[in-house]
């Protein structure tokens, strides 16, 4: 299917925004400006963007601990995210959530999740709400290769099939769960291959290639919107960095990482495709790079300057009413 120039520009802008966001978060973390645990998405941009460009704000996504890319792809405000990751009062979650708990319900982003396997049952629930109201929206859950072994994820898949819910289970196979290889932790060595046993179609695609992800997910989303139920898409793309910022990555070789960063960059791959096909020009893309760089720069600067929450904020937002 042909994608419009605007669509391609949007896709590139989003992928670039994720990349620049993550690079900046890395740098600021190293400088000691960002606290806690941060898990970066660099290298997997085509997965989040390829998935979410099939979605509207009415569609829901449930994310993981590595959620920055999913948030940005779903249209969550980058500035609010950066302020949140800095722990600031005007962050998207008032500084109470942090990197692993960014949510923006208005954008259909029902939450990053620091519990591996936490999101799929929730995404199934969002799909149940959609079906109960008779809407044609869909719900998407993101899970990693490591997380694909969590019992909650299997239960979610089975329930989605039983109730024929509009859910798409995205498995982002980035090669590792912390320092453990996917071929070790997944006994069958085939995540997508499990779907058949649960009664769902599945598709494994090159997670470095926006077009491959976008097309496979489009089919899954169309199917779900049409009321034909859930399906699985596995996107394969290694993360460039460690599990979290600070991970020594001893489980990877220097060569493998260099190779990955050199040859498996979703942005490079996208740029080559669209320029070779003369759909977009390097000038257009460079211009976007500039815009995004400014946005990220502005976000980080304002996040650095913003105020921290205070004692008055500590005990609010626990209950609607108590």
């Amino acid at each position, binding site marked *: 299917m042909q994608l419009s120039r605007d669509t391609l520009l949007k896709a590139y802008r989003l992928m670039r925004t994720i990349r620049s966001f993550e690079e900046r978060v890395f740098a600021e973390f190293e400088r000691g400006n960002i606290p806690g645990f941060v898990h970066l998405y660099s290298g997997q941009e085509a997965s989040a963007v390829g998935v979410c460009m099939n979605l509207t704000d009415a569609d*829901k996504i*449930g994310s993981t601990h590595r959620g920055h890319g999913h948030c940005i792809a779903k249209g969550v405000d980058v500035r609010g995210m950066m302020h949140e990751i800095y722990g600031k009062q005007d*962050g*998207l*979650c*008032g*500084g*109470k*959530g942090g990197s692993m*708990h960014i*949510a*923006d*319900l208005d954008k259909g982003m*029902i*939450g990053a*999740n620091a*519990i591996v396997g*936490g999101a*799929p*049952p*929730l*995404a*199934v*629930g*969002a*799909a*149940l*709400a*959609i079906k*109960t*109201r008779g809407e044609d929206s869909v*719900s998407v859950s993101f899970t990693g290769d490591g997380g694909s072994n969590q*019992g*909650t994820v299997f*239960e*979610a898949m*089975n*329930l989605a099939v*039983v*109730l024929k819910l509009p859910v798409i289970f995205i498995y982002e196979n980035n090669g590792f769960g912390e320092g453990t290889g996917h071929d070790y932790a997944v006994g069958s060595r085939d995540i997508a291959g499990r779907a058949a046993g649960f009664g769902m179609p599945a598709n494994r695609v090159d997670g470095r290639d926006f077009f491959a992800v976008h097309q496979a997910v489009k089919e899954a989303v169309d199917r779900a919107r049409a009321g034909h139920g859930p399906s699985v898409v596995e996107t394969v793309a290694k993360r460039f960095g460690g599990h979290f910022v600070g991970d020594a990555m001893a489980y990877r070789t220097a060569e493998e990482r260099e190779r990955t960063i050199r040859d498996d960059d979703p942005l490079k791959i996208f740029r080559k495709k669209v320029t070779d096909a003369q759909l977009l020009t390097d000038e257009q893309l460079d211009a976007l790079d500039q815009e995004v760089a400014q946005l990220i720069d502005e976000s980080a600067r304002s996040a650095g300057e913003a105020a921290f929450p205070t004692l008055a904020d500590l005990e*609010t*937002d*626990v*209950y*609607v*009413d*108590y």
Partner: protein
Amino acid sequence: MPQKSMRQALNEALQHEMRRDSKVILLGEDVAGGAGCEGEDDAYGGVLGVTKGLVGEFGRARVIDTPISESAIMGAAAGAALAGLRPVADLMFVDFLGVCFDQIFNQAAKFRYMFGGKAVTPMVMRAMIGGGFRAGGQHSQTLHPMFTMVPGLKVVMPSSPYDAKGLLIQAIRDDDPVIFLEHKAMYDMMGEVPDEAYVIPFGEANFTREGKDVTVVALSLMVDRANQAADLLKKEGISVEVVDPRTTSPLDLDSILESVEKTGRLVVVDESPPRCSLAADIAAQVAEHGFDDLNAPIITVTCPHTPSPFSPALEDLYMPSVDRIADAIRKVAKK
């Protein structure tokens, strides 16, 4: 007022709210029953019949039988609540929380805080608690302390059919996640229950006996036993006040403190092992905020620090009895 069982009172509460609000759905194992079977639909209506008849009126789209997958059930309820429904999820026996607790205590309970006050998660989790069924170690627990300690959850433990209906309606209309704990030995308990809908607000204790010598705090099935002990001791000239907080979170500490101010003596009855129990929680709060009113040690009457035994001979000794409650009251009354 018509006499009804607690089972019927709960069933009416669900029916009222499902008629009133199409966003209310039920899900759980055999909440209808008969899915994919040759026999009748509505074959179960919940293992102990509380949801009986609802699938007939509201259909399988709103009374949803699920696989045995409690994490998916609770997660689906939490996710659906985040997305605008008001799900009532049935855990069946509370003892099963161990296979789905994350979705309750790390997910539903924490959304609002972690998301900076933007999330609303109006779900109700119903579960059966308590002993007396000779159901053994994995089907007889109460576990209310495990929910009470979790910020973000509200916890309800009705002690009568009347309270059960009013509190369940409140739970369904409430915008926060509510854990609604029904004592399985109380489903056939009869009491006056209005036909129409009514709510009982959370955090408002009910004084089931007025007295001046000793304050007894109890919830759920223990309220009836505390009342029996109070009636027994009246004959001995000990005037007992029984306070039923109805909800453990929020807890109506003020009413408890008021009563202790009057009596100067406190006994807390809790069907639970003693460590980090609700009995300990209430005793500690009074020892901090009502200390100057106390004329005697605070005595807690709980189960021992053991799992629930199966044998009737042991289970009867395991649960707080009217006699054990009465003995505790006598002990402090003498002081």
